[in-house]
């Protein structure tokens, strides 16, 4: 008696799960590329008169120059990008110890000047390193003063830390040597 063979086996739908995960991962990755992150900056207000430049003591100003070849000059010395944070931190925490650096953290200013031909990528790297320096000194101060991480502080304590190390990055008008 010829037994009827079992019907054709179903299509193995197990690979559908793989496709589903692939689609899922694809969407997860592509929506992550959304530009919802970035470096926050506060622009200085436009002043009516040409009182833009107030006289600052030279020691209180850390001069950072970037030319059209994306090279960095800090206090007239050629510097690599990965040295910038350390130098800036030294400047901010100097408190008058070394004569070439800031007399106090409240007066410390970083002056940044680009060229019109500087690449935005390089500019942002430089700005990032400066911001990193400020974030790190603030974090260290928060630990020393309050024993907690900066992010764990209350709003008023954060303000205390921020007031001790105010972000004073002054951007000068860019030079026009390397403009395209």
């Amino acid at each position, binding site marked *: 008696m010829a037994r009827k063979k079992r019907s054709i086996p179903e299509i193995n*739908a*197990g690979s559908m799960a793989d496709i589903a995960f692939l689609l899922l991962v694809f969407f997860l990755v592509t929506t992550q*590329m959304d*530009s919802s992150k*970035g*470096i926050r*900056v*506060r622009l*200085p207000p436009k002043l009516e008169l040409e009182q833009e430049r107030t006289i600052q003591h030279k020691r209180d100003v850390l001069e950072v120059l970037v030319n059209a070849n994306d090279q960095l000059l800090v206090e007239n010395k050629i510097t690599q990008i990965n040295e910038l944070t350390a130098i800036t931190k030294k400047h901010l925490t100097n408190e008058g110890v070394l004569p070439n650096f800031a007399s106090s953290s409240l007066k410390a200013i970083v002056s940044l000047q680009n060229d019109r031909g500087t690449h*935005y990528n390089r500019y942002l790297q430089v700005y990032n390193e400066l911001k990193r320096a400020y974030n790190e000194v603030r974090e260290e101060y928060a630990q020393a003063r309050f024993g907690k991480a900066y992010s764990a502080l209350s709003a008023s304590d954060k303000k205390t830390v921020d007031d001790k190390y105010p972000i004073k990055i002054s951007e000068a008008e860019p030079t026009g040597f390397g403009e395209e």
Partner: protein
Amino acid sequence: MAKFRKNKGDRSLTINTSSLPDIVFMLLFFFMVATKMRDKELMVKTSLPTASEVERVEKKSWVNYILVGPPLNVERDGTAPRIQLDDKYGSVEEVGEFIVLKIHEQPEAIRDYLTTAIKADKTVRMGLITDIKQELRNANALKLLYSSLEGDVRDE
């Protein structure tokens, strides 16, 4: 006796996967609804730079975007970097008006909290960016965000 077949041993342990397509579609619809579809067509290339000290934007609706970069359609628009405001190109001078318009679209209470995001390609030169920043200062839109990808800069 013939009724007792060896079937039990023969059956392989397969999960019934017939409902898997339903799950796939459910997930797909979820993502279609949850993620916002791009409302403006991208005309310029914005390969964002990487930075470590990035912060997340809290409210995306309180951000106005200025896109800067080399055009995607080189034959039509050339290779020089262009500014894209909403869905068309703009000049540097138009940036100020654009931002003022966008600010006035929002209720007065939140105007001070609005941020302008500059989404610029890595290769754009600072001359253009600085001009845009100057326009923003004139328009009194002082809260700025440089859109960037999160990552450690020092690896480069």
